[in-house]
């Protein structure tokens, strides 16, 4: 992306600005014509030139539609079993073939998007809310409040993700428990949030600490603005950009995490349809029927990558140093 000629092909009217910028020495008031552009505006200009951004955004849109209206993509029933077609290879009828229980793999893969997207999206929202609130409080209050919250975060941070999830989910979602599909989903979301919020808190805390002493915040405080006003009007908007970037990337990794937990047999369970469950079921038939593993993996990989790439693209656009 650093090639200036490549950039200029894609319709960004820059030459005028260039000549202006390059002759500050010649005279004073040339800078007038230059329209001040915000950081976000700049980032958007940068972003829309990136094919990576458009590709990942398109895929994300596709997956979201898939999650909301799976019937647009398939008329099949993801849970209809028929042992007579157990592990029938992909064909014109069933593009992705049938699994052990004779369920249509294509239909299941499409329907699998819903669980993944819902779980990861809700987990990210939960993580952001909890981690973000804690981070703002810790960063803004400082002192013993900060110390206490930071230590609590350390405790959760000290728990490696998979291990922590195993403990939480085996306790509440053990094989003997009779949780409904929604309860299981709630538990998976809860464990993702519980184990991930410290990261967001640290991000938010350092971001608040960095802006807290900025002159305009000090000025706002001096003029008698209330704490809530300072936080919502001044601090939040400034800390939001990195948080959003991180959130986008996190959606991707949470899709992967959900699949990992389902794969381990401690996350979502049949009859819920999810890519992780499909991969878990497919692993025993790796040799005779690799396609059972291939299709859900391919969808999972594409979904994860789309979100991660979108996040990376936005991050690069927002970071002037990388341009």
């Amino acid at each position, binding site marked *: 992306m*650093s090639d*200036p000629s490549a950039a200029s092909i894609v319709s960004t009217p820059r030459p005028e600005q*260039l000549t202006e*910028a*390059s*002759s*500050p*020495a*010649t005279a004073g008031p040339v800078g007038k014509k230059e329209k001040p552009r915000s950081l976000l505006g700049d980032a958007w200009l940068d972003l829309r030139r990136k094919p990576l951004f458009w590709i990942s955004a398109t895929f994300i849109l596709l997956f979201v539609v898939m999650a909301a209206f799976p019937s647009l993509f398939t008329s099949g029933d993801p849970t209809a079993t028929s042992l007579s077609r157990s592990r029938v290879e992909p064909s014109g009828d069933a593009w992705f073939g049938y699994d052990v229980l004779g369920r249509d793999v294509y239909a299941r893969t499409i329907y699998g998007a819903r669980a993944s997207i819902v779980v990861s999206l809700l987990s990210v929202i939960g993580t952001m809310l909890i981690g973000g609130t804690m981070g703002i409080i810790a960063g803004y209050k400082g002192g013993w409040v900060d110390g206490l919250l930071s230590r609590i975060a350390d405790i959760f941070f000290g728990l490696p993700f998979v291990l922590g999830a195993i403990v939480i989910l085996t306790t509440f979602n053990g094989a003997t428990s009779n949780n409904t599909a929604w309860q299981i989903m709630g538990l998976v979301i809860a464990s993702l949030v519980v184990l991930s919020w410290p990261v967001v808190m640290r991000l938010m805390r350092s971001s608040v600490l960095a802006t807290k002493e900025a002159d305009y915040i000090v000025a706002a405080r001096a003029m008698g603005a209330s704490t809530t006003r300072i936080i919502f009007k001044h601090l939040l908007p400034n800390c939001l950009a990195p948080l959003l970037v991180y959130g986008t990337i996190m959606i991707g990794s949470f899709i992967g995490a959900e699949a990992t937990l389902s794969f381990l047999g401690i996350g979502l369970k049949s009859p819920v349809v999810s890519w992780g469950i499909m991969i878990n079921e497919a692993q025993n038939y790796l040799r005779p029927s690799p396609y059972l593993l291939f299709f859900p993996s391919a969808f999972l990989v594409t979904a994860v990558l789309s979100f991660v790439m979108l996040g990376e693209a936005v991050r690069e656009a927002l970071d002037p140093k990388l341009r």
Partner: protein
Amino acid sequence: MSDILVSEQSAPGADGSGRPSGRLLEVDDLRVEFRTRDGVAKVINGVTYHVDAGETLAVLGESGSGKSVTAQTIMGILDMPPGFVTGGRVRFHGKDMLTMSAEERRRIRGEGIAMIFQDSLSALNPVFTVGFQIAEQFRIRRGMSRSDAKKRAIEMLDQVKIPNAKGRFSNYPHQFSGGMRQRAMIAMSLALDPEVLIADEPTTALDVTVQAQIMDLLGELQRERRMGMILITHDLGVVADVADRIAVMYAGRIVEEADVYDLYAKPAHPYTLGLLNSIPRLDERGQQLRTIKGLPPNLMNIPPGCPFNPRCPMAQPVCRETIPPLLQIGTGRASACHFAEELVNRD
């Protein structure tokens, strides 16, 4: 172009010191540009200067005038890209360094030409001891044993008058004070007994009192070792005591070159005159400081004609059309001004 600048003074190297006399280091019509996303900046536009054994050439100029880039090009430490050498020669003992092999050139560094940097804190490697960084040269370049190299390094630290050199050997750069660190830097650059020393603003980052000490030390070492020295600075005060000759740079060109005395007495370029006038003087207290109006030109868009013309109080129409060449105007001095003679001969 270099033959214009025939220096009349006798080359001081020819006195049996063992060093070859004559042109030690010669920069000839050097041209360098930086190619960036925003355009091409012509940083050096035909710089020509030389330094002989035992003499000190001061290169004077504002930041952005190209004085440091010239030094970096001589040393071969220019960032390429974005830097590109588009023309000219750098001769060391008559041999063009820009066309020789990388290995040949590497051998000149440290032994032939050494360099002192402005900011010793960032120029010294933070994770190695100062002693290691000096001794390293004896080990790598001279093949000395670890203990011999250490002994020599401590000698070097002693020579630059660092107290308790032995104890200081194993200190890290951040444990030195600014002045001591610059001394260590000098010790490091002199370790291989170079013939030419390039000092790139060696005192800019230091306190005024320490500045004088460091300059004294440099002058002393230069005389002892009969080195050629290129002293790069923007500080006219530093120059007067140490330099033999001064080359003034502006917008990537030498605009005036002269002996120190001549330059101070009768500047032959309006830019030099402006620089001299901008020094605060005690006998003019209470008056407004005189400055050169305007800003240095943007190197991506150097004005046509004399690059100084937009700021020059003496500018005439001709200055906006023709670039004045650097012409000899007397013994050992040259100026790149259309009106150099008038300047020198006025009052």
